[in-house]
């Protein structure tokens, strides 16, 4: 049985369509991340599930029960908000107890659940404080605890880490992953940060402009991006997208790059690639720096970023096309150096004119 099921969900604000005919099934206990750029509608989709927005078309089921006509409090979901939304006039303890009291949980039971959550999230020291007396990270833990004590069927997170500093964000991310392993409750997590998505998700739902671009495991989304949008949104540094002319070379596709270099790939040939406007996708880690006379294509290093464990080199092909490439951490490349590029054709992606991705191996 599906934990959450959306079928044909649409949402308009006035004349503006924000979610357009979205269908999605989330398994019981799955951790799903909605990933997409700002304004793509991922919060709206989450809020539709929560009941904070009314949908215009479609249906939402949680645990097999249709919920889209139920008020938020009756859907058995808990949500963690980006700005915490803790009740400012209540102590931390009352914040945790508020929802339980409203649904008639006994005071004994409330005490027990709070004790468990307090231990899990280490917030025991400030149970009697008001939210105004807590740091951002502490508030976030209280907000998560407030969701946990409700023992809901479904957790919803709307960019809960975006107000934390980098170190705390990384730590909380790990804690959330552990929490999911312990609770095994279905979770939906909204973010525009692809690192959060990659590290937390069982499956990622990539959303762009009102619709789902791809649903898949982090590795699928990274290795077999369904569209050029997904390819460019997931992965840092960003994938290189180069306009090419593709041709059939014995059943496999070969791509002629703007500088004339012919790159042989292991992507099965498809007539859709023959039309104008095919795009070659190369991840930086698959374009490596070699000696000036080696590799498939000569290039000139323009900008060099040394990150320690690896070096990012922005290199220009003969025609000026700029590629993001990688070298070893101890690279000696200097800006202006002539280098060769060793391009891994087996890891290349091709996108047809309509953006559809084609990848090596069976589909």
């Amino acid at each position, binding site marked *: 049985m599906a934990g959450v099921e959306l079928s044909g969900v649409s949402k308009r604000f006035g004349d503006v369509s924000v979610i357009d005919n979205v269908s999605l099934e989330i398994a019981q206990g799955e951790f799903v991340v909605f990933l997409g750029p700002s304004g793509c509608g991922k919060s709206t989709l989450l809020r539709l599930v*929560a009941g*904070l927005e009314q949908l215009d078309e479609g249906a939402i089921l949680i645990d097999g029960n249709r919920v889209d006509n139920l008020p938020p409090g009756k859907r058995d*979901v808990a949500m963690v908000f980006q*700005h915490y*939304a803790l009740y*400012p006039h209540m102590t931390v303890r009352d914040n945790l107890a508020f*929802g339980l009291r409203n649904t008639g949980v006994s005071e004994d039971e409330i005490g027990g659940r709070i004790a468990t959550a307090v231990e899990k999230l280490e917030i025991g020291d400030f149970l009697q404080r008001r939210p105004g007396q807590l740091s951002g990270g502490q508030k976030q833990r209280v907000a998560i605890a407030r969701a946990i004590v409700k023992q809901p069927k479904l957790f919803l997170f709307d960019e809960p880490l975006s107000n934390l500093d980098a170190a705390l964000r990384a730590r909380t991310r790990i804690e959330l992953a552990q929490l999911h392993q312990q609770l095994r409750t279905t979770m939906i997590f909204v973010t525009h940060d692809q690192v959060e998505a990659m590290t937390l998700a069982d499956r990622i739902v990539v959303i762009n402009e009102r619709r789902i671009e791809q649903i898949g495991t982090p590795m699928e989304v990274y290795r077999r991006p369904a569209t050029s949008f997904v390819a460019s949104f997931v992965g840092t540094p960003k994938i290189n997208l180069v306009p090419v002319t593709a041709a059939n070379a014995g059943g496999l596709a070969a791509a002629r790059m703007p500088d004339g270099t012919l790159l042989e790939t292991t992507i099965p040939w498809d007539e859709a690639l023959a039309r104008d406007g095919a795009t070659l996708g190369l991840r930086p880690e698959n374009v490596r720096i070699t000696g000036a006379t080696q590799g498939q294509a000569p290039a000139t290093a323009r900008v060099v970023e040394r990150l320690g464990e690896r070096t990012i080199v922005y290199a220009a092909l003969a025609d000026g096309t700029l590629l993001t490439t990688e070298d070893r951490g101890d690279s000696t490349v200097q800006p202006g150096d002539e280098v060769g590029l060793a391009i891994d054709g087996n890891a290349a992606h091709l996108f047809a004119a309509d953006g559809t991705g084609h990848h090596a191996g069976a589909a």
Partner: protein
Amino acid sequence: MLASQQGRRSTWDRWSGMLFVAPYLLLFVLMLVVPLVIGFRLSLTRGDLFGIREEVGFANYGRLFADPVFIQVIWNTLYFVVLTVPAFAVLGLLLALALNQQSRWAAVLRAIFFASTVLSVTVVTLIWRLVLLPEQGLAAVLANAIGAEPVAFLSSQATAMPAIAVTTIWWGIGLPMVLFLAALQQVPRDLYEAAALDGASRWRTLRSITLPSIKRTMVLVIIVEIILQFQLFGQAQLLTNGGPNNSTRPIVLFIYEAGWKQWQLGYAAAAAQILFAMIAIAAMAQYYVSSRRDAA
């Protein structure tokens, strides 16, 4: 040397801070403190149209408390404050809660309820005279329509002050309403969303989210209304002129008549000092009570 530099710096900071408040401070002293001092000085004298005749110490105050009319106007004023201030707070809040919506209707109604505030007291009392007129007034017409006996609101001791209170509430409800509306709009929307997800009923949400969030505004409204309603004057003068039988004569009307009709400036000034003290005490008591409850 560093320390002395720091010392100089902080002295400069202190004085430059003073510089910023100086214009207001000057106005405050000129417009408030000076008249207050002059008023108090005046209350210790006996004089007439042509000026101060003699210093009399606190004799004016003694006379005031021996004057049964003055004692009655104090009770009248307190009665009026009790009738109006809680009503302003409660009705203002209810109106704000009802009209705190995005709809066009709510916007129109907000404008209507606020509109009466901009009318002058003359217009307001004229309107309400037409309502309260014993025979042809709107209230009488309505009473006749339901077969009840029309009441002469303004000429009965029992109903005159409540009638003035109703007039005043109708006139002034716009101010508390907009203050509450502004406060309601400051409450973050995600608090309501969290409460909805926490299964809170509307009543629970009002009690646990809305009311605590606007507590400061409630205190402000009550203090402002205390200050305003203690100074009842125009409505009472124009609707009943203090009658019947002095039952609607407020302190300010008493001061006005003592000072500008009978030219007992010292006597009027003394009554004004007492009014000032009453307002100050009431406002401070309200502030004290609410901040005590806040801390608890």
